[in-house]
């Protein structure tokens, strides 16, 4: 064998080619045969207790066990556990898990096996666990892949996908934004001006037919300083503000930028900051944010 790092250290592997055989004897053989069939059995001792896994000789008395096999479990109760934060190559699971002693229902002794509990808090003495079986079984304790806590919740992947088409008034508004103007509507009955353009007036129900082109300047009427991140804002804190465009009676809610959050004021004059013209699409993404104009504040 080549030495490692030039030091007098060498790797030496002893592995019987093909692996050792283990003759099971009748008791362990029955246990493993039942496992292959997807059942767990214990053996009854002369004193009447049920050993799981079965042993050939009762550790309490040294007597041979009886030939009575008792189906136990499949569920059981954890009596103790040790959490494995970093599984090693030979471990039964490749994610953090617990080694646990599990007293299967109907058994008088505990079985050691792995429990896939997700996190250590999910496992305590008394936790009920069930075996998770391997599909292909060949008569080994690993025919039980691991145990797992009872199912108490499922994850439901609900997904609805829509195809949204901006038609009507919204389409007209976005088309306007696509060429750098805000299009609102004026109600012929009550005279209120809405931006974005709406099909009808929320105040009086009148169909809005008169379109109005509004400037990209306005006044912040009020705002929130948001400390929770949002994908639509570049950073936290960010300011979401009610902005009354000049000539409008209904505020837009939009991002304010170009000014530290705590310097934003109610009554502050702002102007839309447009992204470069060559990047424009029919979308509000054309407006990066509203930034202060530097004019004196408006009295609200």
């Amino acid at each position, binding site marked *: 064998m080549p030495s490692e790092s030039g030091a007098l250290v060498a790797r030496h592997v002893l592995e019987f080619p093909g692996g050792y055989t283990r003759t099971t004897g009748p008791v362990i053989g029955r246990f493993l045969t039942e496992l292959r069939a997807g059942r767990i059995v214990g053996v009854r001792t002369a004193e009447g207790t049920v050993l799981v896994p079965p042993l050939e000789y009762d550790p309490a008395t040294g007597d041979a066990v009886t030939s009575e096999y008792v189906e136990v479990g499949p569920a059981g109760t954890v009596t103790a556990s040790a959490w494995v934060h970093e599984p090693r190559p030979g471990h039964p699971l490749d994610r953090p898990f617990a080694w646990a002693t599990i007293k299967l229902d109907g058994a008088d002794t505990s079985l050691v096996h792995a429990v896939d509990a997700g996190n250590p808090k999910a496992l305590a003495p008394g936790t009920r666990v069930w075996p998770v079986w391997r599909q292909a079984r060949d008569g080994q304790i690993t025919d039980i892949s691991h145990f797992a806590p009872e199912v108490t919740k499922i994850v439901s992947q609900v997904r609805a996908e829509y195809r949204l088409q901006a038609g009507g008034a919204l389409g007209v508004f976005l088309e306007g934004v696509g060429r750098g103007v805000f299009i609102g509507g004026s109600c012929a009955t009550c005279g209120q001006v809405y931006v974005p353009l709406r099909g009808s007036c929320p105040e009086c129900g009148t169909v809005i037919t008169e379109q109005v082109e509004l400037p990209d300047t306005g006044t912040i009427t009020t705002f*929130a300083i948001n400390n929770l991140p949002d994908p639509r804002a570049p950073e936290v804190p960010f300011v979401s503000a009610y902005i009354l465009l000049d000539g409008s009676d209904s505020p837009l809610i939009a991002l304010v930028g170009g000014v530290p959050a705590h310097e934003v004021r109610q009554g502050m004059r702002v102007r839309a900051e447009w992204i470069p013209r060559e990047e424009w699409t029919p979308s509000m993404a054309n407006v990066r944010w509203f930034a202060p104009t530097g004019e004196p504040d408006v009295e609200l």
Partner: protein
Amino acid sequence: MNRCAVIGVGQTHYTTKRRDVSIAGLVREAALRALDDAGLTFKDINAVVIGKAPDLFEGVMMPESYLADALGAAGKPMMRVHTAGSVGGSTALVGAGLIQGGVHDRVLVVAFEKQSESNATWALTTHPPFSSSLVVGAGGYFAPHIREYMRRTGAPGHIGTLVAVKDRLNALKNPYAHLRIPGIDRAMVESTPMLWEPIRYLETCPSSDGACAIVLSSEDKVTGTPAWVHGAAMRSEPMSRARRDTVSPQAGKDCAADVYRQAGITDPRRQIDVAEVYVPFSWYEPMWLENLGFTAEGEGWKVTESGATALDGDIPWNASGGVLSSNPIGASGLIRFAEAALQVRGMAGEHQVDGARLALGHAYGGGAQFFAMWIVGREKP
């Protein structure tokens, strides 16, 4: 209009996660407690009305059809009500309407939310395309209106913390309350971070799992201790109305005027003994004190500051701890209505307001565009 009474109230303990029950198990727990309070069983119920907030919260579409079995509704009329956060109140009023209109003699009203199944801020912030709005959750929506209230009235910044403390102190007397914070005080509230300035973490409501149920009865079928409905009103208004007053919405004023007229109330602060009002962010107490006419415009914060709304004040608000202490959203409005009933029945336990004869239950929802209110009393109207 026929008389209507609340004869049973049932609540679950409100908590962050009810891991041990399904949604069906949760609503049934509240329903059975309400029936038990009334000394009745499902057999005695003619119709079931259920309310909850948006389906997107749990991702269960039309939960009313799934929950019919759990609520003993087989073979009976069952309907679902939805008016966002005010839904619990609206659900009670739809149930009361079935009694007052003479359609049924006994109606079971249930409302719930199992917020732990998803995240309400996610569900309220779904980023639809083409939108020019930038709102993050309910707090992001309401924070600017609170700021505007502060500007208009000149209210000092600590008023919100006073309500946050007062309601949590009340919660310590309510075994069903979710947030029970021993030693809660202004310093603790002020030490928590701003989420949506001017709203601090402890100035907001929690996310709760829970259900509330009430049994409503016609006069002839009353069992046990009744709380009589003296007035019931709902109003809504368009959120996008131009020049809308988002600090003190017209729909709230109109709804209050209607319910007071029915109950013969001309001076709510003097005539009403206790109020359970939907205050999910602490600043909404002074805002609603004005909107509901308990004081003049601009004076709400002074009423709060004076201690008048505390359990030992002249007009206790949210003796139960309110939405600030328990918020299974869909149920939160019904809890207000149920707590008002418990008070006039004299069954509110440690947070009972002595001698309460007339109580207001209030809920609001959406962008403060839906309102539901009732006045319940110890005596028949």
